[in-house]
């Protein structure tokens, strides 16, 4: 074990010595290293206090000279500062390139996008000054061009994270409850057992039945109780589980559509009856209808001009979508499988022979009103 500690030391001695003031961890166990994401040079917290308390100063590491502020210093998460820097870059890039997979048509597009972003990160992290500048430029341009979408995706991401957190919390809570329940159950069982035993002893002392019989009976009582309790617990478990399940699906819920409300019965099976080749007008100018419109005697019986228009127009257009030659040719071929009832209904409604099996698109074109 100690060997381990030593080898760790030997691995990377700079881990424990401040490069600025050269104090090391053995003399000062509370030594703490800080970095500034401006240049990622590491130094101990004492040095930071000493150099930067009185305002911005340049980095004490030789040949660096960047101007740093105390505010910018923080503890590094990674021991490898290169990785620390890379992750910081990723954070920056990730905040801008935050597209989501469902925004892409195909998986390949998504993957290509991912690779491109990765390449950009790489340019910033590993590239020389020129490529880095180019990449930064790209980043900025993209940011300006897509600010709206970026914002939306950020919000979506946050929401998702929130949901996730809530779900986790609920789960933990459920687990805690179950644990408590199990504990309680055990306690109860134990208490029961004790009570029963006492009862048996009492009975043995007062009654004078067969001792074995009494003991036997008592045992049976206990067993029944415990099995009953277990059954109860099982059912509770079931209900718990279903509750837990519903908690679990929160994440999926977002994408799932609300259950479809049952629609009123449609006798035409979804065939759209509004004419598509013409638009039915309110009224048409027609010489010989003029009289009928005005004549009380015609209208009194409930004669509706609209009805008349509709039928006339339908009759005029009804043959237009039908090509006899095509249908005859079709008939010779095996019927298309599983056309379903919809076209059949359509066919009947349009007064065609049902066995002609109109193709689905035909049905759309038959502008039948009845």
């Amino acid at each position: 074990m100690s060997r381990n500690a030593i080898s760790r030391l030997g691995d990377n001695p700079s881990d424990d010595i401040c490069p600025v003031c050269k104090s090391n961890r053995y003399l000062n166990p509370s030594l703490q290293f800080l970095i500034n994401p401006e240049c990622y040079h590491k130094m101990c917290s004492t040095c930071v206090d000493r150099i930067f308390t009185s305002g911005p100063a340049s980095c004490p590491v030789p040949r660096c000279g960047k101007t740093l502020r105390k505010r910018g210093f923080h503890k590094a998460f990674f021991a490898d500062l290169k990785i620390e820097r890379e992750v910081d870059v990723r954070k920056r890039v990730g905040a801008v390139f935050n597209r989501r997979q469902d925004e892409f048509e195909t998986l390949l597009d998504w993957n290509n996008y991912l690779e491109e972003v990765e390449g950009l990160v790489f340019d910033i992290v590993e590239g020389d000054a020129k490529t880095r500048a180019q990449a930064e430029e790209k980043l900025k341009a993209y940011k300006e061009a897509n600010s709206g979408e970026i914002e939306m995706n950020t919000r979506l991401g946050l929401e998702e994270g929130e949901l996730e957190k809530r779900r986790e919390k609920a789960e933990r809570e459920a687990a805690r409850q179950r644990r408590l329940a199990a504990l309680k159950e055990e306690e109860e069982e134990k208490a029961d057992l004790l009570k029963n035993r006492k009862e048996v002893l009492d009975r043995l002392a007062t009654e004078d039945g067969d001792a074995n019989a009494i003991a036997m009976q008592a045992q049976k009582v206990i067993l029944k109780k415990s099995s009953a309790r277990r059954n109860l617990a099982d059912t509770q478990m079931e209900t718990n589980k279903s509750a837990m399940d519903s908690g679990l699906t929160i994440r999926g819920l977002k994408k799932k559509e609300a259950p479809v409300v049952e629609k009123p019965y449609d006798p035409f099976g979804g065939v759209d009856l509004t004419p598509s080749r013409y638009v039915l007008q309110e009224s048409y100018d027609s010489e010989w209808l003029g009289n009928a419109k005005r004549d009380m005697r015609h209208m009194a019986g409930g004669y509706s001009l609209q009805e008349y228009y509709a039928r006339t127009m339908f009759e005029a257009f009804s043959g237009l979508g039908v090509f006899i030659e095509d249908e005859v040719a079709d008939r010779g071929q095996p019927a298309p499988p599983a056309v379903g009832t919809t076209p059949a209904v359509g066919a009947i409604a349009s007064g065609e022979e049902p066995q002609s099996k109109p193709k689905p698109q035909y049905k759309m074109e038959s502008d039948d009103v009845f």
Partner: protein
Amino acid sequence: MKFNIGDLPVLFPYPRIYPEQYAYMCDLKKTLDAGGHCVLEMPSGTGKTVSLLSLIVAYQQYYPEHRKLIYCSRTMSEIEKALAELKALMKYREEQLGYKEDFRGLGLTSRKNLCLHPSVKREKSGAVVDARCRSLTAGFVKEKKARGEDVPVCIYHDNLDLLEPHNLIPNGVWTLDGIMRYGEEHKQCPYFTSRRMMSFCNVIIYSYHYLLDPKIAERVSKELSKDCIVVFDEAHNIDNVCIEALSTDITEDSLRKATRGAQNLERKIAEMKDSDADKLKTEYAKLVEGLRDADEAREEDAFMSNPALPDDLLKEAVPGNIRRAEHFVAFLKRFVEYLKTRMKVRQVISETPPSFLAHLKEYTFIEKKPLRFCAERLTSLVRTLELTNIEDYQPLQEVATFATLVATYEKGFLLILEPYESDTAEVPNPVLHFTCLDAAIAIKPVFDRFSSVIITSGTISPLEMYPKMLGFTTVVQESYSMTLARRSFLPMIVTRGSDQVAISSGFQVRNEPSVVRNYGNLLTEFSKLTPDGMVVFFPSYLYMESIISMWQGMGILDEVWKYKLILVETPDAQETSVALETYRTACCNGRGAILLCVARGKVSEGIDFDHQYGRTVLCIGVPFQYTESRILKARLEFLRETYRIRENDFLSFDAMRHAAQCLGRVLRGKDDYGIMVLADRRFLKKRNQLPKWINQALLDSEVNLSTDMAVGSAKKFLKGMAQPFKPRDQEGISTWSIRDLENFKEKQEEESIRQLREAQTAGAGVVDQHMEGVRNGNEETVTRGDEYGFDDDELEASMMELDGH
């Protein structure tokens, strides 16, 4: 002998059969006919393997489907034994049938056992043999050779390519030894011969891992068809094997090596970019298409194996951000650095995979999806780079495997970070355990894929525990009792010393001098009366050490020494095998010896003490697991929450299956005899958890003995055993000739006819009677369960003691 079960003619290679063997075969056939799974407990030493093989081979040869048999065992010696049995069986069949059947049976074990290469086979570690073999046999090595470059290859492997691929070895049954000899003669590699012939075999016998470890199973077992018959023999520990197959441990050291591996990869990529950029480009193009396509080019064993990915994932293309080699290596480095940082924490942390992933994402921007592809991607990269010193990348591969697993499974796993080795340690030595809690995960593909899975062992009680833990349903669940012409083994439970002080290995009392002395007396007494060998099991090494040193102080060992040699098992395998050797010699030359060992050690599993090698087995204390282990605790909690198995039930079950294993060690056949002593007060209440065949032989008068009473019983028993016992005495009772079998079947038929007739005449009456029987049966179980219920509190109290210490 030859007989029929239903319409199936069975050839059994012995002139006599045990009644339980017949029953076992009937149930096996029932399972196979129904096409379901079963759990069967067959007493040890009653010829389980041979019954299994003869039935299944008969089944295979008789019905037109010719279902293949996959027989899984634990150790190499068990595999070899089964192969020998199979060979004898096939020889017998040939003699009886008068012709040779078209049949091939092969065994498979690791390269280390099967390698013939003069220098590779001399390596000590299996991993090194694997790695060196791979570097000699990888596809690109062959390509290079074909191009005329001078690269080392393995001639044994290359010779295989000259043979017909479906006929690398003639028909017949090949024992491991046999195939080694054949390989040596024909200069062909036995390991690859076996591997490649897998799909042209009628019977395959190999280790559990080839089926359960998803990392291996994917490679070795994927071509096996659905109607194979899968047998897990000695399966009482199968849940632990499943769990180990999916668990990994990561240490600081392995992370350091992983970093080095990643740096090497980086360098290699740069080199390849300069010299042979096309290769990287082709790989890249393949990855754009999807992993499976890249997979087509995969050789039989290119790199280390990967954990199984769900099928839909495999068909998907590699995520874009790890498609390029350099991106992927950076990705790995980031992940490794993250793990290193996590390891610096100085308190115990346990978290679920989702919360681990959330944290990981927050700090490193690593998403779940590329993480899942990690292992496959690394394999592909290593292949592209044509790396030969593969063992250098093992730690990196481990990390990648871990990444894939953690991103693939949300439930049933837990990450536990333990910064210190023990509670008292000062110097941190952190280990990140990624532990699987659910045994059902690893075995699920097996149950899903194969229609008949048979789980069997000598001690697999309580039977219903296994379907529960492993998540499957059975068509047959059966435990057989042992038919004996005389009482050939004597199980006893000793609860007190001669001075009436209760004995127990429970935590509070285990170090009390009175208890230790009583155990010592027990040992002394039995060492006096036992002829030849005697085996003693302790719950743990720690306890064994402390009790031995106390015995030394009390002068007990000196006393024992007068009667027997004393040998001790140690965690070191080498030392233990020397001890075993000495023990056997001592047993054979008449003086006899005592072997002190541990109930969960190597000796308790897989080493037989038949005949003079073991006349008494003494189980000191209940072999509970060390309950303070965090991993065990997590598993207990998982079992309770998911399968409704209570902690105590599981701990007690686990302890008893190990105890039963220990007891079973001394009785390896019907002509064998031995004494089994369970020495702990607490065994009294756990009696019902023993396998049926042991429990049945345990008389009520022998469950609560003191040392002197036990000694009396043992003496009487041994006197009985010393009487001459002719094989003829067994006939018709514990062994059947073909006549006896016929008689039995006749009687059975008569019985069923009678019942049918009665049912017809008396109608309702019979039903009533039947119901009565059922009710009676219930009554029995109720009362039996009661004893258990009554003691629950004590049980709990004793269980929570730190037994493993």
